[in-house]
């Protein structure tokens, strides 16, 4: 398991700046890692984006979520299903998964496990309650 995580980091680190959160959502964010946002936001850009599209915290960096938005719209070869997921409500990060392999967590569906209260609220919303 540790070996898979090491290999994963060696690949995803240089390409996407992977922070090894262990619950990868790259496919739904235009292949842009939201964990590289200084506020580690998982659900879109904050209100501090500068007029030139750069980050409130790191002025030299383009807003991660602005990049994700543009790429989710225009990146070639991205399946339509993935593009549509940009606007999904992503659950809070499970901090227990930090440093573990997102690939393994995907295959075991561990990365989809959310707190019971969160799940109940989402389910109630889906039922229109």
């Amino acid at each position, binding site marked *: 398991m540790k070996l898979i995580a090491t290999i994963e980091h060696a690949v995803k680190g240089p390409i996407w700046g992977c922070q090894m959160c262990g619950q990868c959502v790259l496919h739904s964010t235009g292949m842009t890692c939201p964990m590289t946002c200084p*506020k*580690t*936001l998982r*659900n879109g850009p904050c209100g*501090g*984006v500068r007029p030139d599209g750069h980050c*409130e915290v790191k002025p030299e960096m383009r807003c991660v979520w602005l990049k994700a938005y543009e790429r989710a719209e225009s990146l070639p070869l991205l399946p339509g299903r993935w593009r549509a997921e940009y606007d999904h409500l992503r659950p*809070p990060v499970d901090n227990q998964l930090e440093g573990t392999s997102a690939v393994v967590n995907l295959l075991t569906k561990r990365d989809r496990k959310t707190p019971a209260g969160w799940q*109940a*609220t989402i389910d109630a919303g889906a039922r229109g309650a």
Partner: protein
Amino acid sequence: MSLLSDKLARGEFVVTAEIPSINADRAAVERAVDLYAPFADAINATDNPAAHAHASPLAVSLAIRDCGVEPIMQLVCRDRNRIALQAEIVGAALHGLENVCCLTGDDVTAGDEPEARRVFDLDSPQLITVARTLAEGRYLSGRKLDPAPQLFIGAVENPGAPPFAYRVQRALKKARAGARFLQLQICFEPDRLRGFVDEGVRAGLDRQLALLPSICIPRSAKALRFIDERVPGVSVPAALIARVEARDDQAQACEDLAYELAAETIALPGVAGLHIISFGRDGAAARLCERLGNPSRTGKDDVGHGSPVEV
């Protein structure tokens, strides 16, 4: 139900305001509330704005209520993890406070203690969802919360920050998460604000939550420049600053500017009310409301076109 939610559910025009940051000074709360009470339906207690430590929003909310006005407790994701955020909301409910406004929050680097650890354990759509989870009688873990607190959940969106084409969708996401009122970030660009509200109405945003654009009344061209340079996500067009600078009475010029923006804003279909930020300037907010015809006290028929919000 909170008075704010009642009024919005009836489709009446509301005015909310924001008192300046409060320290350990009870009299300052009384002075500020006295200024806003004649025209404001509710007053925001901010959560350590611009990452500067002040009295906590729950404590300030209680002080506002003691002064006879309904508070809106702001809560940002910067300083507390999910456990502390839930504790704050349930703590507010323990005291009968219902209005909670959930924000991401300025980064620690915007403040005077940039060496602090930033938290952001949740983001704002997640915080809104957690507030709704509490209101449904559960903690995030699923543990029962009985009785379920009565909450009126709000959010903030910035119509003036890129990506402009996505801002309404993000607001809709917050509505889906459970927000029922949306206080917009200050916006000195009328075209941007109109663009957001128009697009919001087209997308049905105004039927899902109450749209409350903010109107800011600064003091001078220098203050406008400060906002432009230092407030994250807010731009002030150079022409506006020049216009204020050219006038002898800059404070009056700022009031005139705020009036123009406010009059234009409340005429927009879909706007349910206004949020006024005047940095505690004596009388400026009251004068603005008077010039607008006291919309929160005379009913909405003459001004807004907001539809009743299901709360």
